[in-house]
């Protein structure tokens, strides 16, 4: 019996094993080849740096990319900002200290760009200031409102979430081109206005309309992204708190004021910082939509930087001036972010106490 038992199913199993073994060997061959090839490389390296040194070795590729694409450009930016001349090679650029900064900051009245030596930079600063204030405040309010609506149990909620998020997937250049077709002199809106016998508006060539156009297009393109962040923040608030509030007789307004807003504050802080930095960096969609015009009505700081570095301003290209402008913007952004963080932290402490 024992023998039969061994010969019966045992024989079948060993036959199957004999059949599948070559298949397994064949399938694992590429893996073994790869491992052996890697072994040829890494074993000598491990002998060289030791097992403790290996993690650092694995970090090197990412670190190299970070150094090449982040650290070196930042250092070059610093070098250009403190040197003059037209050459792109740092070695050929004479050191001029803070001259680029003093040229940029040379103003009789900072609120009047015409009184500044480099008036185009200050026009960019003023335009960006207005853009940031309107864009960021509108963005936060609209994103909050949209997220509150989309957080409720409305019909076709998934569809609407998709609709609001969709523009975020588009490139800003594509967004600007789409809106250009809508807003241009012979565009969709003017066609509609003409169709109902109303006077047309040259949206992209009248200063106030053009400013508004860049703001609206910026809002349209980024609203979905910030809505999504706030929506995630809203969904992280425990439903238990609202249930308790309802039992305590809190109205919807009170729930929003005493539960939603305080618990959403860290999320709103992130939204504020991200949208603020994004608004200061406004460039692509404005460039495509209005190219800084009419005149310099929609010429923002990054527009000035681009023109100074590549297209030429005040008689020529000036990389030093362009990089100095970016450093000034970076300093302002960092300072603003730190202040905002400090305020937010204090407010959180107040709330937690």
């Amino acid at each position, binding site marked *: 019996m024992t023998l039969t038992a061994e010969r019966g199913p045992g024989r079948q199993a060993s036959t199957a094993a004999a059949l599948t073994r070559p298949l397994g060997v064949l399938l694992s061959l590429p893996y073994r*080849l790869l491992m052996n090839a890697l072994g040829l490389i890494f074993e000598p390296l491990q002998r060289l740096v030791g097992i403790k040194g290996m993690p650092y070795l694995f970090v090197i590729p990412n670190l190299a990319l970070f150094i090449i694409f982040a650290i070196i450009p930042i250092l070059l930016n610093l070098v250009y900002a403190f040197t003059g001349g037209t050459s792109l*090679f740092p070695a050929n650029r004479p050191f001029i200290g803070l001259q680029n900064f003093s040229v940029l900051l040379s103003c009789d009245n900072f609120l009047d760009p015409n009184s500044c030596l480099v008036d185009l930079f200050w026009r960019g600063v003023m335009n960006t200031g207005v853009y940031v204030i309107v864009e960021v405040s509108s963005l936060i309010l609209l994103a909050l409102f949209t997220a509150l609506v989309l957080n409720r149990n409305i019909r076709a909620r998934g569809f609407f979430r998709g609709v609001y998020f969709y523009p975020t997937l588009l490139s800003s250049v594509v967004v600007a081109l789409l809106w250009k077709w809508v807003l241009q*002199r012979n565009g969709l809106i003017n066609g509609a206005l003409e169709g109902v016998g109303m006077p047309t508006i040259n949206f992209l060539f009248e200063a106030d309309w053009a400013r508004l156009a860049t703001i609206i297009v910026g809002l349209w393109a980024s609203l979905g992204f910030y809505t999504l962040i706030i929506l995630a923040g809203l969904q992280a608030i425990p439903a238990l708190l609202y249930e308790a509030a309802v039992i305590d007789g809190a109205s919807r307004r009170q729930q929003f004021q005493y539960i939603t807003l305080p618990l959403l504050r860290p999320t709103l802080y992130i939204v504020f910082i991200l949208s603020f930095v994004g608004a200061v960096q406004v460039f692509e969609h404005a460039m495509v939509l209005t190219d800084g015009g009419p*005149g310099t*009505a*929609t010429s923002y700081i990054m527009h000035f930087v681009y023109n100074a570095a590549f*297209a030429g301003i*005040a*008689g*020529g290209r000036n990389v030093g001036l362009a990089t100095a402008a970016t450093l000034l913007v970076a300093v302002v952004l960092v300072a603003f972010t730190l202040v905002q963080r400090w305020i937010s932290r204090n407010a959180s402490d107040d709330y937690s106490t």
Partner: protein
Amino acid sequence: MLRKLVSLVILLSLFVAASVQVTAQEPVQVRVMADLVDDQITVFEEIIAAFEAENPDVDVLLDVVPYETIQQALPLQLETGVGPDIIKSTDIPGLSPYYLDMRPYVADPAYWDANFGPTITMANPDGGDRLSALYSDLTVTGPFINRTLFEQAGVAVPSDSSDHVTWEEWEAAAVAVRDATGVEFAMGLDRSGHRLMGPAISVGATYLDEEGYPNLAADEGFRAFVEMFVGFHTNGVMPIDIWAGGDGARNGRDEFINGNLVFYYSGNWQIGSFAANIGDGFDWEAVPNPCGAQTCTGMPGGAVFAAIGATQHPEEVSRFMDYLASEPVYRQWAERTLLAPQHIALAEAGLNWNTELPQALKSLDVFAREASNISPIAMALFTSPNIGPVYNATRDRISQIIVGELSFEEGMERIQSDIDTGLAAAASS
């Protein structure tokens, strides 16, 4: 065993790769960057194909790019030494530090000296005699009209009855045509400092003072022209869309092609484009330059094909440039693109333009006459080493005056300070 096998495979792969690299004889690649349009692309590609058939060891690659790329990205590429081997550019003296001297490489330098003398002078602002460039086209600025619109409006074309039509007369006629036909725009002028120069000189501008320095703030003729030009925009004669529309060069070409512009000031390089895009869709033609108080002149200009010194293949680059410069090829280029040649023997012999379109032939005749009537002030300005910063300064600041960001006086001051800054920077570099 497996490890040995892997090592063997790797070694063999390396050996095969190295062998392939050593034995392959790829043609030398010569890269051309040019802002060609319409039929120019086809003609140039055919020239390349013919050259490659005769020179199988050279592979000419054509990169057709927008004009802005030539203006903005190319100088940075050239500065870093990784740019193309041959470029087409309008900034002839400005990019001269990057040019290749082809004199040791071309088959017959005397042929170049005899036929491209003015180009050699322009491409050597330091007074040298390097052979680096040949004009792709010699240009002169001037206006076009949509004669069909004039006929529809029942308005006489002023230049039909007079050789001396003023800007004001053209303005009155164009506005009358616009109002009668319902098209959107009466007059348009390319957004370019260069395009302003002919009209401004006609009105009385000199641009350069006695020392050859551009002193525009004190140039009464220039000031008078700017006042007139700004007025054209504030009173709606010219569309704000061209001159107030942000940075860079802009033109009214599309509006003219679409039959939406009565009078369009640009230059002879548009003839080929209009022939291709309008054809005989409506009657278009060039008319003589409008007159001001001083004269009636256009502004010369043009673009060159220039060889770049950083090339790894100077011999092959020079061979292709030599081919382009040869009389039959240059003739083919000019006759088929309807671009005026800057080849002395060809210009003297005359060309058989490759078109039977009456509108194009008439326009070519008009611009030939305009080229011979260019004011000495315009010629002096064209060859001045101080002209560079004037283009952008006048273009950008006049735009600001037009939209009201700067008063007239503020604009004039900014134009001058931009020019001073630009020339000082050029002098110190």
